[in-house]
């Protein structure tokens, strides 16, 4: 146990800052959903966001790829830099940003297209494949990474909406990795999955960490402990504590964090 933890510390120490957020505030109309959150998210690291329901985890996640732009009443204040660029700068094109920062949603949302076209959609619009063979290869690799290849390889041209809920979610994960994002935001990606698929997705996350930065929202403390190196605890829109995962679970500093991870507030 101690050995593993030391290894994690060594890993994170070697990483650079990928996303730097300073004094981020989010309002939905009059609701103040995110209150003055500052956080540094490291490259080649898995960061877990935990916290009780409604505390603003999804909201903060959506700030990182500007998906809050699609909500009319949402207002975002503060600075968020990715690789040193202010992503809310008017010169930044949210379309390019989202190609770089992928997202998996809380609820599976496959397009009403074939499984193949679901995966191929991102590579097609970004011109990632020059030939049909290349595209086929991307599709297969993505589906394998999404831990769903074996289940769908014989029905690639059937509609993605015909899959089960858990399969749909893995399809969406595969769809998100198909565009090779540098940052992958995952909003409770495993809430609809069985333990086997969950383990496969966690393996994927671990693998993605070699090249990317992954942010995962989860309600499962075990999952956060298993996959992440850093953990951020949110409570009522505040970022209460943000530290190495091992430390936050063994030795929380804030009383609120301790009550949450021991199950006293939820």
């Amino acid at each position, binding site marked *: 146990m101690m050995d593993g933890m030391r290894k994690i510390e060594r890993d994170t120490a070697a990483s650079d800052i990928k996303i730097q957020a300073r004094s981020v505030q989010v309002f939905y109309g009059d609701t103040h959903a995110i209150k003055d959150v500052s956080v540094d998210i490291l490259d080649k690291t898995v960061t877990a966001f935990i916290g009780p329901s409604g505390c603003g985890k999804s909201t903060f996640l959506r700030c990182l790829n500007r998906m809050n732009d699609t909500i009319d009443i949402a207002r975002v204040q503060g600075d968020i830099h990715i690789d040193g660029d202010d992503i809310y700068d008017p010169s930044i094109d949210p379309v390019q940003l989202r190609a770089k920062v992928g997202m998996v949603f809380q609820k599976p949302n496959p*397009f*009403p297209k074939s499984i193949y076209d679901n995966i191929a959609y991102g590579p097609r619009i970004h011109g990632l494949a020059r030939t049909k063979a290349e595209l086929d290869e991307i599709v297969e690799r993505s589906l394998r990474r999404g831990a769903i290849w074996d289940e769908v390889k014989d029905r690639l041209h059937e509609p993605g909406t015909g899959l089960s809920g858990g399969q749909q979610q893995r399809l969406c994960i595969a769809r998100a990795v198909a565009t090779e994002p540098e940052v992958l935001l995952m909003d409770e990606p495993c809430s609809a999955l069985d333990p086997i698929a969950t383990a496969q997705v966690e393996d994927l996350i671990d693998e993605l960490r070699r090249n990317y930065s992954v942010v995962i929202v989860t309600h499962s403390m075990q999952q956060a402990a298993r996959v992440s190196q850093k953990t951020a605890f949110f409570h009522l829109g505040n970022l209460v504590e943000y530290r190495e995962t091992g430390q936050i679970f063994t030795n929380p500093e804030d009383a609120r964090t301790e009550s949450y991870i021991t199950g006293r507030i939820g």
Partner: protein
Amino acid sequence: MTTFAFVALLCVSVLGYSLNRHAATRLRANGTRLHSVPAYHGLYSLLSTMVPVVTLIVTWLMLQGPLIDRFTMSGLPAGSLDSLDTGGRQLILAEIKSISRGRIFGDPEAWKVDAADRYVRMHAISGWVLLGTVIVASLGIVGFSRSRVAAEFRARHGVERITSGLMLFCSTIAIFTTLGIIAALLFESIRFFERVPIMEFFFGLNWEPQIPLREDQIAAEGAFGWIPVFLGTLVITVVALFLAVPVGLLSAIYLNEFAPSRLRAVAKPVLEILAGVPTVVYGFFAILVVAPAIRSFGATLGIPVSPNTALAAGTVMGIMLIPFISSFTDDALSAVPKSLRDGALALGATRAETVLNVLFPAAIPGIVGGILLAISRAIGETMIVVMAAGLIASLTVNPLDSVTTVTVQIVTLLIGDTSFDNPKTLAAFALGMMLFVVTLVINVFALRIVRKYREAYE
């Protein structure tokens, strides 16, 4: 007297309602557990009185007229109807009736005045008997219902059965009306095909129905090939769709996806107003604005343009269809869940790509359904083409020519004094039949597509 019957029925039913309701309330006050709440006991009495007695009154009123007519005629002195055909008898009956209403012309024979007296008396008797029957029947039913009030009596089930029966009846009205229309059209069409060979109608390339001015006039036989007429309808429909589909689609996409919400709030109601403009007004627009504009434009280009072109009628019909198509498209796009839009945007798709690749395919069944319904509206549209299209059927697909449509021909065939047993009049029914069949087929297609797409997200 009929009014009295209805009033009596109403009073008795309300009485029955309150009787039953009070009885049930009293039962409950005594501590009995009722199967149905008191209001249902009241409603049970009300409905089981109303429904049969109203049916009785209506049937009575329907039968009373013909029956009294028959009694009046059979009561006439022997021999007074001899040597009269049906028409003559009708005439005498009409005279008797007008005498009974006090409108006496000249000096009618005494037996006619007698008959009129009897006619009046029979009506009065019938009215009183009706009133009596209604009162007795409704009181009887009220008494019977009152006797059924009991703890375990399932009044609610009774009420539910009666109301679902009523709903069934209402829904069958529409079905029976449709069947009636089909039957009428079919009947007249068959009479048409007895006079004109089916083959000529379906495959003939000439449409020249000469309308005889008098019954004894021997007009040229006329030609009844529906192809040029239907072709005219098609040309105008195609022109209309060429305008309405792109404009309607693009405006819906713009309003749904790109427009700021304030513009949308203004533009949507305006489009809906456009949908409410009477088609006559569109017709004026076609005659006064579009047709002259097309003609003068053609003149500047040196192209001969006929005064009432298919292009003018089709354009205006297209304008009429724009709100139709755009509101269907708008609904279909709005029905696409927000999560799909987010999914595409999160992959780095632009708004246009999202619309084109994700929203549009998801909405396409709804949109196609809307377009098909628009087509069947265009085919059946009458007023615009009556005003703006031509009368002569010509076998052409050139939108700058004058064409006629199925609906225009139906109108011209039936306008004015026509006798209902010559092929020129009956042809209108055959055309109507075809119109009905074509639009029916399109609508069935459209509804199937729309239904399929509803299932996609539920």
